[in-house]
């Protein structure tokens, strides 16, 4: 196998599973260590720099980092990364002096941001410190986008949202709220140097089956209904509610319905339970509130009498897999009916750009999604950039943030007349953690604790009051214990072949059999012949060049390394060292050599 090039920043980046999986590449273990050291403000700022909304995300993030977390591969459950973020936000001190300075003298460039969701706000957050003048337009009365209109307040208190949206708007962004942009052409005519479109995916899919028109008064599209609730246009719903759909919107709809008077609330889904799009924790929370989830039910018709909704009928289906593994829902011939007073349709979301003229140079592809460069977020009109749900269809907040950072880099390069593809590489440092005998500057002990549960408020109270936050967050003691579960995957095992005497001490001490000394071979041969077979192909093998004494190679399977440092501890020659790898995605305007890799 070719020896590993650890000079390539992406190699060690991939070892930091959580950071690698995070769309914004938040340095997770770095902030978790800060929480262990009770440095909450610092932990908050590390987050703020990369994901902009730590308090919001600490409550609502889709957390792609957690399924990726190494801890989940050596034990039961991943580190509660997301809730630790919240602990940093909850316990932080004053941020005075920590926020970027906004230059009084502007650089003469004007940018328009359409939509004030997380994508646009991130662009503003990255460009304001560089001296740009920014106008932000949104049809709502406040910033936040769907974080305000869709995410129910019992999951995200308005105060948290206001605070973090405020940090950005307070940089001096010119806001045009309650202003719906009706024409891109007119925005472009306004002499902006660049326009960023962050208008989200605002249209909820409807369900066109018999009875839809006749019973329309009691049938609502989920996201429209949720925003009506958020803006207090709707304050109640019938006692018996059916929610259609298996995603997170359905979970928010049913839980909100429970709080607005729904007593018999059911979620009814076409697919089986395991194929539902909703995150496992969203499903758990819904079920814990007494909401049953019925699977394998395909809606057949809305039932009505005298123009009034009376219920719904469904065809029962069975899930079958053919020889190629393709799944199909086969009708069983059975049908069921459920009486109800209201139906919420939460079966999907779409992009819609009625306000963008089709002749302003912005091309659209399938499903009226704009044609956007996936690296630069530039559209076919070089002045117009897209990000967040508007760019690639409905995703989540952290993806919108990641797009925002990249779009800001592009807009900055664009305004300075530079090549958008000559993008800055990540900022990377690799520093030895050795302090002395048995002493490392990180806490290398591995905690045996299982994942701690976040306490919830009493459902008797939260189900009565829509505005009461359900999750209470970790107290500082639990946060500390949970933080200890982190394996410090950013503290890398760095091998120097030239000093190894092949004594096997590292092989023997390694608790999880990562390290091998073996004759060189093809990757597939190595993977099957190691002390513990390396079956997880998503994780790399770290391979050295030939060793001095036997010409064998060192092969380390990164898969379940605990980063305990014992290999380095037991190495007589220091051929192993534990080095902290800090990887920061470079932001707009940060002086850094363009990546040549």
């Amino acid at each position, binding site marked *: 196998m070719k020896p590993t090039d650890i000079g390539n920043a992406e190699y060690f980046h991939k070892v930091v599973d959580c950071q690698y999986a995070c769309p914004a590449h938040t340095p997770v273990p770095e902030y978790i260590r800060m929480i262990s050291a009770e440095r909450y403000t610092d932990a908050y700022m590390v987050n703020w720099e990369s994901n902009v909304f730590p308090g919001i995300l600490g409550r609502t993030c889709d957390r792609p980092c957690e399924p990726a977390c190494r801890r989940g*591969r*050596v*034990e039961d459950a991943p580190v509660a990364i997301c809730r630790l973020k919240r602990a940093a936000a909850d316990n932080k001190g004053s941020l005075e002096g920590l926020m970027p300075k906004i230059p009084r003298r502007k650089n003469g460039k004007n940018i328009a941001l359409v939509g004030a969701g997380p994508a646009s706000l991130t662009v503003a957050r990255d460009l304001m410190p560089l001296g740009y003048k920014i106008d932000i337009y949104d049809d709502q009365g406040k910033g936040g986008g769907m974080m305000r209109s869709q995410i129910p307040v019992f999951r995200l208190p308005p105060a948290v949202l206001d605070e973090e949206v405020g940090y950005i708007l307070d940089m001096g962004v010119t806001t045009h709220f309650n202003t719906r942009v009706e024409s891109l052409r007119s925005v472009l005519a306004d002499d902006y140097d660049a326009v960023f479109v962050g208008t989200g995916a605002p249209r909820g899919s409807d369900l066109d089956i018999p009875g839809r028109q006749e019973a329309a008064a009691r049938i609502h599209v989920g996201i429209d209904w949720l925003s009506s609730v958020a803006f207090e246009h709707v304050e109640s719903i019938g006692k018996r509610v059916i929610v259609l759909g298996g995603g997170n919107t359905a979970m928010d709809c049913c839980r909100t319905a429970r709080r607005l008077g729904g007593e018999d609330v059911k979620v009814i889904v076409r697919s089986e339970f395991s194929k539902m799009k909703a995150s496992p924790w969203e499903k758990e929370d819904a079920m814990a509130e007494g909401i049953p989830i019925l699977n394998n039910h395909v809606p057949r018709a809305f039932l009505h009498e005298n123009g009034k909704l009376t219920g719904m009928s469904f065809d029962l289906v069975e899930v079958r897999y053919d020889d190629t593994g393709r799944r199909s829902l086969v009708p069983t011939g059975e049908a069921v009916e459920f009486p109800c007073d209201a139906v919420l349709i939460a079966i999907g979301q779409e992009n819609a750009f009625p306000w963008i003229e089709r002749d302003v140079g912005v091309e659209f592809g399938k499903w009226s999604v704009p044609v956007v460069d996936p690296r630069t977020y530039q559209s076919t009109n070089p002045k117009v950039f897209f990000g967040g749900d508007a760019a690639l269809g409905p995703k989540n907040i952290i993806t919108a943030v990641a797009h925002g950072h990249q779009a800001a880099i592009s807009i900055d390069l664009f305004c300075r007349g530079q090549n958008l593809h000559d993008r800055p590489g990540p900022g990377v440092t690799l520093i030895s953690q050795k302090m002395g005998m*048995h*002493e*490392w500057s990180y*806490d*290398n*002990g*591995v905690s*045996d604790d299982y994942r701690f549960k976040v306490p919830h408020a009493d459902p008797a109270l939260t189900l009565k009051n829509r505005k009461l936050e359900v999750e209470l967050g970790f107290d500082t003691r639990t946060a500390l214990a949970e933080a200890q579960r982190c394996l410090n995957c950013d503290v890398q095992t760095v091998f120097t072949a030239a000093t190894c*005497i*092949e*004594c*096997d*001490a590292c*092989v*023997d*001490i390694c*608790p*999880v*059999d990562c390290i091998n000394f073996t004759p060189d071979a093809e990757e597939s041969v190595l993977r099957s012949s190691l002390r*513990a*077979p390396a*079956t997880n192909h998503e994780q790399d093998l770290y391979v050295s060049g030939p060793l001095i*004494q*036997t010409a064998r190679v060192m092969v380390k399977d990164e898969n*379940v390394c*605990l980063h*305990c440092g*014992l290999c380095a*501890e*037991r*190495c*007589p*020659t220091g051929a192993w060292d534990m080095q902290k790898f800090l990887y920061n995605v470079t932001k707009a305007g940060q002086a850094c050599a363009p990546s040549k890799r």
Partner: protein
Amino acid sequence: MTYQRPNFRHPEAPVNTLGFTRRDYEGSISTLCAGCGHDSISAAIIEACFGLPVAPHRIAKLSGIGCSSKTPAYFLGRSHGFNSVHGRMPSVATGANLANQDLVYIGVSGDGDSASIGFGQFAHVVRRNLNMTYIVENNGCYGLTKGQDSATADRGSKSKKGSANPYEAIDLASVALQLGATFVARSFSGDREQLVPLIKAALSHSGFAFLDVMSPCVTFNNHEGSTKSYIHVRDHLDAAPVDFVPVRDEIRASYAEGMTTEVRMHDGSVVRLHKDSGQVYNIEDRQAALRAIAEHDEAGRTLTGLLYIDRDAPDLHKVLGTSRRPLNSLKEKDLCPGSKVLDSINAGLR
């Protein structure tokens, strides 16, 4: 800032046919110098016992004094053990073994422990053919007392301070052969491929199985000029590969005619030796083994592998005709044959 082995193990860690994982054979974390050959041998013992397999509670480990003799603390933490005084492990092993032949005995000693202070004890345990595996972790020095030359240090080998050893070395493998050992092998701590099957074979041998394992002292005897350093040992090694095929596995691999010798042990397992690299003499010929050792030595090389085996010699229990059952399980009924027997004995003496 901790020096503790985490409790997690590889999620796909193999389980042996007795239902144990390797972890069941581990001991506490080693306190030897990082890089000590002895730790490698501990790992090889763990591997051999796990792989054979022997249940941990059926093993008794015995040792004397020295870094090597400390190692039983670092493997087989769920087995029986006795850390005796310097050079006296053979007596303790003999006593334990005579009292209970149901256990598997592993003695771990050093070159100082066996070739100096315990040389006399060593001689007698060999000639009695006590059923045990006796491993000398040979680093050519007294590691624990800061690296003085031991009796196995080669003549001319340099100490860390630079002085050459003026005395002739004792070769424990040759001595064991001369004293009638029924299983003699030599290996190197850094050659796990050979060492693990050799330990398995030794554990399967009924009788005295001696293993002389070169085991570099990384702190006091790993410098230039030492003949027991990692690099010197590796450069002068003539290693004859050994495979161990346990009873339950059928023999699948096939080798060119005449290139391998198969030795079937009494328990049905097979030790396979490969002739292509060094093992050219009859493994059951004691004199040939002694000659092979000497010839390699003269050529400045060290022959490793299984050097000699005699599968049929009776062990000490057979010689003495002792009780099959462990002494602690014998009841008064077994021990006191009754007055009738006593009467007949007395009558015989009149």
